[in-house]
């Protein structure tokens, strides 16, 4: 972007140096010059720092599709989806969640999703997915959908992907029920909870391994280890201990001295 900025600043200087141009025309011309030149599909929505290593360009490319899954019985897909939305939502994007009646909204808040820009939409009939999601793509930067058992018709799915690409919205699919391959596929391949014992403690944090793959720029597989959620309910990177700690000195019991 810096070249664009320099061009714009040069433009401003030239306009004021010339001194002949009317103020209105000058402003009009400036407006034209500083207009964003990046195409919608080159822009990216921000993600939480912990997830940046998973995504090409460290952000969600506008107009792309993302599928999120977990190895069967592993769990973690919903939390990963919420974490993926959080930063963009906080930065001002609106999020629509379709067909996710059991979404844990308190967890969403803890992960950083801005609830004032979150809208929940009931799952439409199988025939209705096309029109409902198309309407949402027009108004929302991020649309998360869970098609459930009925699934989305393949023709509808293709049309929606094309529309999302045109409007610069990101379609996030949770679970099965969506035909076609996503641009970016995220999968939770390992998950382990910490903090819960035999009758004591509580679920404190979950260590997960997330892999990403997909098409085009996302084709190179990536993998990160994360706390998802961490003990604060957010996303945190996993830091490996640098070296095993030296064994503690033996504790000397107290003894009477006099």
């Amino acid at each position: 972007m810096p070249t664009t900025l320099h061009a714009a600043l040069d433009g401003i200087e030239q306009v004021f140096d010339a001194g002949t141009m009317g103020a209105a025309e000058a402003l009009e011309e400036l407006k034209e010059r500083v207009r964003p030149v990046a195409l919608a599909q080159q822009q990216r929505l921000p993600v939480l720092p912990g997830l940046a290593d998973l995504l090409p360009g460290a952000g969600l490319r506008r107009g792309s599709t993302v599928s999120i899954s977990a190895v069967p019985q592993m769990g973690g897909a919903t939390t990963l989806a919420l974490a993926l939305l959080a930063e963009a939502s906080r930065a001002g994007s609106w999020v629509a969640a379709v067909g996710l009646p059991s979404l844990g909204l308190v967890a969403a808040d803890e992960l950083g999703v801005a609830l004032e820009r979150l809208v929940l939409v009931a799952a439409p009939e199988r025939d209705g997915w096309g029109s409902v999601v198309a309407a949402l793509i027009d108004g929302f930067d991020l649309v998360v959908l869970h098609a459930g058992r009925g699934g989305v018709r393949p023709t509808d799915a293709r049309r929606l992907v094309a529309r999302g690409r045109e409007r610069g919205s990101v379609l996030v699919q949770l679970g099965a029920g969506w035909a076609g391959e996503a641009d970016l596929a995220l999968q939770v391949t390992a998950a382990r909870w910490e903090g819960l014992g035999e009758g004591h403690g509580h679920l404190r944090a979950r260590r997960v391994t997330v892999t990403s793959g997909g098409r085009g720029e996302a084709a190179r597989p990536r993998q990160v280890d994360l706390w998802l959620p961490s003990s604060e309910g957010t996303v945190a990177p996993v830091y490996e201990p640098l070296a095993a700690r030296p064994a503690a000195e033996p504790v000397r019991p107290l003894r009477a001295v006099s």
Partner: protein
Amino acid sequence: MAAVRTLVVRCSDWPIVAAGHDRSEAVAVVHANRVLATSPAARAAGVARRQRRREAQSHCPALVVLDHDPARDARAFEPIVAALDAITPRVEITVPGQVAFPTRGPSRFFGGDDALVERILGLVPVPCRVGVADGPFAAALAARTGEPCRVVAPGATPAFLAELPLAALEQPDLVDVLTRLGIRTLGALAALPAPDVLARFGIAGQRAWRLAGGLDEHPPATAPPPPDLTVSAELDPPADTVAPAAFVARGLAEELHRRLWARGSACTRVVIGAETDHGERLERVWRAEGALTAAAMADRLRWQLDGWIGGPARHRPTAGISRLWLAPDEVVPAGGRQLGFWGTDVATGDRAARAVARVRGLLGDGAVAIPEWRGSRDPATAIALVDVEAVDLTADRAGAHRDRVAGPWPGRLPTPSPARVHVPPVPAEVVDEQGRRVQVSGRGALSAAPHRLSVDGGTWREVAAWAGPWLLDERWWDAARHRRRARLQLLAADGQGRVVTIEAGAWAVEATYD
């Protein structure tokens, strides 16, 4: 410099009178599901502004509900403004239902403020209140408190304002902050040193301070607007219906806005003028709190055309309108709003609201919901889902912020919260090593450690780790709604964490840590 002595005429409950209803009927005007205006009869029945439509109807089942229609208000108002034209040519319409004009000339002509007020009360054919004070802000407040008129003596305006509550400023955010600082009346605000108010609250604070002290809202402008800002358009053929004239009006408003914008100015008062084929000249002044946008100017121009062309026959021009003009009458520096440099979309809320309206049309009422914090021990009710119909998506909603929840809610689940919450809970079975259902005694003791878990009649899974039980004894004071439950966190051998509860001897999965 003291403010210009101003007279304000305020027609009581104008949206209702304009719609042709009598004030003795129970009527309410509703916009975006909220009550905007009420008739005295409706107020007596308990209907108040900002109530939801259903709530208002529950207070007064016979309530007649009207839709808000600013064009109708403006059209019906035109004859009244025309009647006031007999007193002074410079009548400013603030909003349909309220006009203001400087009293200096008319008062001298009619023999003082009181005589002028008498005359106006006789002229206006609908119930109205009149207020005279220094400056339009104080005069509007005087009109609001007058029964039916209130004349604040020259120079007594600061004393009149000092007693009034801060809410009269109609700037809820600023008023909220000031109230928390212990400043509750306009007098208390005006007593603060001006530089401190400006330093702490910026332009909005300075404006409020000036108003509270009975000064003009803006410091007096040093230069009048140059004449080249007037925009006009010829209509050929002359328009005798609103639609073609309104089409031209839109272009005019945009042109004026563009000219003002190029000078870094904005307009708070605009003269709308029209000339007919027979040479009649019609002129009206509209004033707004804050700068008029192009759309706002176009709206006012259209309403005014509605009033002229669609009004009663004796006020209607005798021929089609052949020329329209817009002249800025009061120009202020544009405060403006800084847009994102790289083309960030500022209207995302509007876009989302439109998409939501479309989806509601496809799926029906109740299909689109937004979250609102309530506070609760249950993850399912800590955030309630509110039907989007009742909410303005473009405005900031207090309910979407966690800090709205008061109280610590002991007994709620520890952080991190479950990512999926089942409403209603999914039936489950938890058994011990011998295969007997695990029970929780009245004192909160488990009959045995949980060993296996089956969700919704599915396969049995070993329990790898567990904690609890945490007892919830809610609403014990209300026999009908009393609930006693015990909660466990279970980690199945496959690595999936769940919250299970037992109520009346039956287990259910309340939430899943997905």
